[in-house]
């Protein structure tokens, strides 16, 4: 490589001077690097400023999700799925739960589909906000990052109103969701979207005609649609190259076929197109949520609220323990409304009626023996949800692309094998191609627009 110029060439002929060979520098853009989101190591062979070739090393956040999924029971895996793509956790929840429901062969009620779609789309908006914000920050636009995280706070408050947690929500259950939307959910949702749209407009204004941003994003990290498909790339990254594959449109699940939305598709397949596709997708996701909120079937269906005089549930249990059966006969348990799973009237609209899969409403669980047995059978170790033997693959449109769950069951209480098809794994395998022949400074916008999430990539 380092060909020394032949010594003794005294008079350099007027012809092209002998090209002095420079040795390529191996630079380690390692795991502890701000632009590498902390857990990717790129060994770049540099010719001055240009990356000649890049080798990507991952696995720094491998936490053994698939091994833990074989240890805990079906509903116990859900907290682990939150932490796969922790920027849009609800989509992972829904994906896993729908896969297990397909394995069980049960369907959830109409309203539950709508609730899942609403929360998935809100989660998708928070993902795109974080991705675009982080990319802009790494290119120097720190203000846009602050605005986008502010907008994400509004949406996280919305998610917290429904699920109780901001990010690690564990909201979905096999066969339904933990709790219904709070009453009057439209109003805070409308306000949050109004704020978010304002922030997106500001960011658009700040970035769209910003010379530095456009110069660094245009023409860098280019990939053609064929290469993208051959690497298995899906999601906004693929749609920026021109191929319009979206799982919500091509293999619709839940109620996506009834909701109006468009799929933005780019043309050049460079970083700017990915930025524009993500900005447009945020608008489409909010449009889906608003349409879903208009069409959602009514929540509380008045089921026979149990005859007899209401007794607070805890008191009923204490009386039963003390053997005062006479005091509780003819009474019906009333659970406190904020207790998870309470609200017998809302229960049939958000959970499947299959007794062996979903917990009974707390009133039944405390109130009568059937509910108590059903709850007991589902909670005891090794029992819980016991799907039939089988294998199933269920694809969902994650924030970075097709997020598939392949679940194999051997009929026991815990899954035999849970495999996650991580969308950003395919994009990262094409990263070495995206980076080569670009400048070292172009690696930052390219890696930012890949939107690599460690939990999902290394599982």
């Amino acid at each position, binding site marked *: 490589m380092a060909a020394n110029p032949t010594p003794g060439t005294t008079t350099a002929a007027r012809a092209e001077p002998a090209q002095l060979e420079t*040795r390529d*520098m*191996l630079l*380690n*853009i390692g795991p502890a690097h701000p632009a590498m989101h902390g857990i990717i190591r790129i060994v770049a062979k540099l010719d*001055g*400023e240009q990356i000649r070739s890049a080798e990507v090393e991952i696995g720094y956040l491998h936490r053994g999700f698939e091994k833990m999924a074989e240890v805990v029971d079906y509903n116990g895996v859900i907290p682990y799925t939150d932490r796969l793509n922790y920027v849009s956790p609800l989509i992972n929840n829904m994906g896993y739960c729908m896969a297990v429901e397909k394995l069980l062969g049960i369907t959830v009620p109409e309203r539950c589909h709508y609730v899942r779609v609403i929360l998935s789309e809100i989660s998708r908006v928070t993902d795109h906000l974080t991705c675009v914000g982080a990319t802009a920050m790494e290119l120097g636009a720190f203000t846009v990052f602050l605005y986008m995280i502010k907008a994400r706070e509004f949406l996280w408050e919305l998610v917290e109103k429904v699920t109780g947690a901001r990010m690690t929500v564990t909201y979905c259950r096999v066969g339904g969701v933990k709790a219904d939307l709070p009453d009057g959910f439209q109003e805070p949702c409308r306000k949050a979207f109004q704020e978010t749209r304002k922030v997106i407009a500001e960011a658009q204004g700040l970035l769209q005609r910003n010379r530095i941003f456009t110069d660094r994003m245009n023409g860098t990290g280019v990939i053609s649609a064929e290469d993208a498909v051959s690497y298995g790339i899906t999601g906004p990254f693929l749609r920026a190259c021109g191929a319009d594959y979206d799982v919500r449109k091509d293999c619709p699940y839940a109620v996506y076929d009834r909701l109006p939305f468009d799929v933005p598709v780019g043309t050049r397949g460079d970083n700017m197109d990915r930025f524009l596709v993500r900005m447009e997708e945020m608008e489409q996701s909010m449009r889906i949520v608003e349409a879903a909120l208009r069409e959602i079937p009514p929540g509380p269906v008045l089921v026979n609220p149990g005859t007899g005089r209401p007794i607070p549930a805890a008191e009923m249990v204490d009386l039963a323990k003390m053997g005062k059966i006479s005091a509780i006969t003819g009474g019906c348990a009333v659970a406190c409304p904020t207790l998870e799973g309470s609200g017998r009237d809302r229960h049939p609209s958000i959970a499947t009626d299959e007794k062996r899969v979903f917990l009974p409403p707390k009133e039944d669980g405390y109130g009568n023996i059937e509910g108590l047995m059903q709850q007991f059978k589902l909670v005891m170790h090794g029992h819980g949800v016991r799907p039939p033997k089988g294998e199933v693959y269920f694809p969902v449109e994650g924030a970075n692309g097709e997020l598939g769950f392949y679940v194999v069951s051997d009929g026991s209480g815990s899954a035999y094998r849970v495999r996650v098809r991580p969308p950003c794994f395919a994009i990262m395998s094409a990263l070495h191609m995206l980076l080569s022949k670009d400048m070292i400074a172009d690696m930052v916008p390219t890696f930012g627009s890949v939107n690599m999430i460690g939990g999902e990539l290394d599982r």
Partner: protein
Amino acid sequence: MTEYIGIAVTFVLAGGIAGAMVFLSSTLGKKHPSAVKLAPFECGKDPFSLPMGRLAIKFYLTAILFILFDVELVFLYPWAVDFRNLGLVGLTEMGIFLGVVMAGFVYAWDNGALEWK
């Protein structure tokens, strides 16, 4: 003679502040050198090779261009201090000087010295 006092004061002040900072940081934050701490920081991994050996000529070219236009600025300062007294003569002289340097800049730009390729 008196106008040089100003310069002396600035030197003393500058030297004092710089010295104080160095002294304070060395006394308050004691140095505890260790092998790992002295190794170059390359994102938590061992660096492959310290960048000896020949580097691309582009770096050198860019550095030279920067120095050229930086030094040119130095000549503007004395003119800028009292350009009113120098009047038209000073303006034309500085115009010629800047014109020559700009010609050099245009030549460099045209020859692609600023692009990286």
